[in-house]
Structures are given as structure tokens and as C-alpha cells.
């Protein structure tokens, strides 16, 4: 320490109070039990120090950003502020700065974090990404709407894909790439050659394997952070509630009406958003069904069409890339819901016409008399039209 810094320290000691670890601990404990927040606790250390642990209840304002950020953290200059650093020196200088800025009641923790920790007092570890994750998701971290907190949300998120086919395949790949921590896939079907024209998560070498297992292999090779849960089963009344309970968002990649109605009703009861997508030849559409906020599937289609008006891809054909586009747009909606950003397509149907090269949007109607989500709705006991659908609700759900 040079003479100038010693002089500053003298000024600091004259203006900034100092508390011992015991004093600070007592005040903070009392504050917590009273539910008060008279005292704001501020950690002025560097990020790497904070990352290794901090005092519970502290807000992190590194000393380098103190002047710029402190007024946002403590707008009221009469409020008591307790500062700490690693050993009790930087917090004194920081305290002097606060006094100069007009803060009336500034205290520094003698001995700092080191003394606190050595006294056996509680410390908290912040959740951070690993070095490998910081690299892998670096392009997400650079986006303000995502950042480290957003990436942690993605890693905590659980998305269920109904079907690992045309819509599920692209969705699974991109959600895995994004770091969605848990991806559930329900599909009883096996990979066939004709799938490979569009279901890009599968491979020629995996023809004959269960689609859900094939998808698992692709996901695990792409991103080891992702936990894949497969259900070699079809969704029906006996399992839908229990399966969807474990997920935050559901992507509907089904190809038959009974499953859509079943999923609709179960998701209303469990209050899980369902991202709906469908494709026919060169056209696709998608929307987000958010229970009790926008319309549900039954608001749009209280009854299914007759078989001749709802041909499958095997009957009508589809340009392979179309489900790719729609499946990816479904993934975008899933990420928006998880991160809580942007305007999800609730109450809006996005329409894509590939030949015209046009996107358009329809405004959907939420039916106040809907038998499922209306005022007198009863989603627990509505028909799912298992006998009246285009594709028989057979063993598989797939797209």
C-alpha cells in the first residue's frame, strides 16, 4: 500500500463503520426471521470469487462496476448497506465510494468472506455452467435474451415429443442442440426407409430399430448434457396423465385425431402447453395451445373430419422438408416458452405455403362454450373419436 492508498483507507475508517462476523451474522439472521429487508448485503468481489461461494442473501456488485450499478441495487440512499469482500480491505474502499455517492449508512464486514467462512457460517454456491458448457452454449450466452440464466433454464427444462417422426425428428435434434436437459420421446414405431426422406434424426443403418431409440442415439451423440427418456408405447387414457406430468412443454407430432383429442384434454387438466403442428404436401401450420389462456384443440375442431378429408402422408405425400420447417418452428415456440421470451403463438395459427413462399397468420377463436376448456368444460370425459379417424389409432403415434 502506497501513501495515497493509506490516506484513502484513513478516510474510509473515519466514515465507514465496521462489523465483526458475529455482529453481521446476528443482524442478518434476525432480519431473515423477521422477514425484514432493512439491510442490503452486497458482495464486491470478482466473479470468479463469487462463483466459488457467497454469503446467503448477498447481491453481487463487483467493485469494478460499483459506481455504475449500486444505485440500481440500492436506490434508497438512507438504507443500510453492508459490504463485504474476501478479507475486509476492498469493502472499506467500496464503502468510501458509497459515502461519496451520498449513502448515509455504510458498513464493511471485517475479515470479509474469508473470516465468515472460517467461522463455519453458511455459504451458498451459485449455479454456473461448466467450462464445457460455457464453450458449447457460447453462442446462446452472447444473446441477451438467453445468457447464462437462460441456458440454465434450458438445461432444467423437460420437453415431451409425441412422435419421433416428421415433426419430432427436427424438433428433437434442435432442442437437444439447444441444451434442453430432458427430452422425452413416445413412439412405438420402427424406422422404415420411406421415413428417411424427412425424418432426419434416423439413419439408413438404423432402419428396423425403434424410432425412439434411434432418436436417443442421435441426441446422445450430439449433446451429452441431454437426458433422453423413451416410451415404447402409444399414448392412451391409461398413461397420458402420468407421462405428461413429468414435462413442462409438449410438442405434438402426432398424425391422428384420437391422440390429438386425448392429448388436448390431458394437457388442459395438467395445465401443460402443447405446441401443435401439422403438414400436408406443401403447406404447414402451427400454434401453441396454452391451457386456459388461448383456444384449445377442441375450440378449433370440436369434431374430426371424415377420413377422406384427412389423408395421411402415405396417401397424399409430403415434401420432406415441410415437416422439417414446421417441426423446427415448433421447437422455436418451445424455446420461447421455456425462456419466457417473445410472443408465443397462443391464439394464433402460423401458416406456411412453401410453393408461394408465404407465411401468414390466422387469428384463432377461443370458444367460451368449448366442452373442454370453456366455462363449463369437462375435459375428463370427452370423446376422442377413436372409431372415426383418418389413421386408425393403432399401435404407433408418429408423423
Amino acid at each position: 500500500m502506497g501513501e495515497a492508498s493509506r490516506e484513502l483507507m484513513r478516510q474510509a475508517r473515519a466514515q465507514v463503520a465496521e462489523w465483526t462476523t458475529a455482529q453481521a451474522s446476528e443482524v442478518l439472521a434476525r432480519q431473515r426471521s423477521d422477514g425484514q429487508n432493512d439491510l442490503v448485503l452486497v458482495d464486491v468481489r470478482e466473479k470468479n470469487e463469487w462463483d466459488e461461494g457467497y454469503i446467503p442473501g448477498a447481491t453481487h456488485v463487483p467493485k469494478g462496476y460499483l459506481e455504475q450499478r449500486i444505485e440500481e441495487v440500492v436506490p434508497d440512499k438512507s438504507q443500510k448497506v453492508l459490504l463485504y469482500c474476501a478479507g475486509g480491505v476492498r469493502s472499506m474502499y467500496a464503502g468510501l465510494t458509497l459515502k461519496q455517492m451520498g449513502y448515509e449508512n455504510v458498513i464493511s464486514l471485517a475479515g470479509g468472506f474469508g473470516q465468515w467462512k472460517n467461522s463455519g457460517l453458511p455459504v451458498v454456491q451459485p449455479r454456473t455452467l461448466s467450462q464445457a458448457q460455457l464453450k458449447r452454449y457460447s453462442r446462446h450466452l452472447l444473446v441477451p435474451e438467453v445468457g447464462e440464466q437462460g441456458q440454465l433454464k434450458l438445461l432444467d427444462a423437460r420437453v415431451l415429443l409425441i412422435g419421433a417422426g416428421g415433426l419430432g425428428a427436427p424438433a428433437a435434434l434442435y432442442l437437444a442442440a439447444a441444451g434442453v436437459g430432458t427430452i422425452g420421446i413416445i413412439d412405438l414405431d420402427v424406422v422404415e426407409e420411406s421415413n428417411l426422406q424427412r425424418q432426419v434424426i434416423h439413419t439408413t443403418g438404423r432402419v428396423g430399430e425403434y424410432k425412439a431409440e434411434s432418436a436417443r442415439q442421435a441426441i446422445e451423440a450430439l449433446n451429452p448434457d441431454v437426458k433422453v427418456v423413451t416410451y415404447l408405447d402409444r399414448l392412451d387414457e391409461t398413461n397420458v396423465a402420468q407421462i405428461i406430468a413429468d414435462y413442462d412443454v409438449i410438442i405434438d407430432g402426432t398424425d391422428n385425431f384420437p391422440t390429438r383429442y386425448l392429448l388436448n384434454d390431458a394437457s388442459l387438466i395438467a395445465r401443460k402447453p402443447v405446441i401443435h403442428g401439422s403438414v400436408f404436401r406443401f403447406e404447414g401450420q402451427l400454434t401453441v395451445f396454452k391451457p386456459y389462456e388461448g383456444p384449445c384443440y377442441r375450440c378449433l375442431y370440436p369434431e374430426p373430419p371424415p377420413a377422406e378429408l384427412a389423408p395421411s402422408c402415405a396417401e397424399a405425400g409430403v415434401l420432406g422438408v415441410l415437416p422439417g420447417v414446421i417441426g423446427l418452428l415448433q421447437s422455436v415456440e418451445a424455446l420461447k416458452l421455456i425462456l419466457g421470451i417473445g410472443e408465443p403463438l397462443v391464439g394464433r395459427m402460423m401458416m406456411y405455403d412453401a410453393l408461394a413462399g408465404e407465411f401468414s397468420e390466422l387469428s384463432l377463436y377461443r370458444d367460451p362454450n368449448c366442452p373442454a376448456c370453456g366455462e363449463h368444460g369437462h375435459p375428463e370425459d370427452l370423446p376422442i373419436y377413436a372409431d372415426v379417424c383418418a389413421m386408425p389409432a393403432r399401435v404407433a403415434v408418429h408423423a
Partner: protein
Amino acid sequence: MATVRLAPVLRASVGGVKQVSAKGETLADVLSDLYVNYPALKEQIQPGDTLSRFINIYVNDQDVRHLQGLETSVGPSDTVILLPAMAGGR
């Protein structure tokens, strides 16, 4: 003459095109006009007295249930979309 756009599954009933014109000041009139010119379409979407429940109609991208239903007025620069539920798959 309003513009009427049809979802892919309905196009065969109107000679395979994506869009046709129809006369009428209300949606009900527009549908009547369509049925006169394209009886196959009527068979598909309104075989009985009322419009089938798996069809939604949008005027200028708004579901007509938000508007005045079949009494919704339709002008020459308006677009009517007929959209049944899609299944896809396989």
C-alpha cells in the same frame, strides 16, 4: 367478388385450384354462391343444413366466430379462408 382460399384437401372440389372468387355480401351468400358453382365442395363441407364442425372459416385472417358468423359482411377486397383440420402423418 371476394377471394376464397381453400385448404389443400378441398381443392379437388374446385378443379384443383388454391383460390376462387365468389359473390355475396355476407359469408352465408358467399358460401351459397360457392355451392352453386362447386357442388362437390358442398358435399365435402356442408352435406347437411349447416356447415360441418371440422371446418373453420376466416375472413381476413379472423375466425368468423369472432365476427358475425355467417352474417359477417364480405367485401370485394376481402379474403375468405376455408380450413379443415389436418392430420398428416406416415
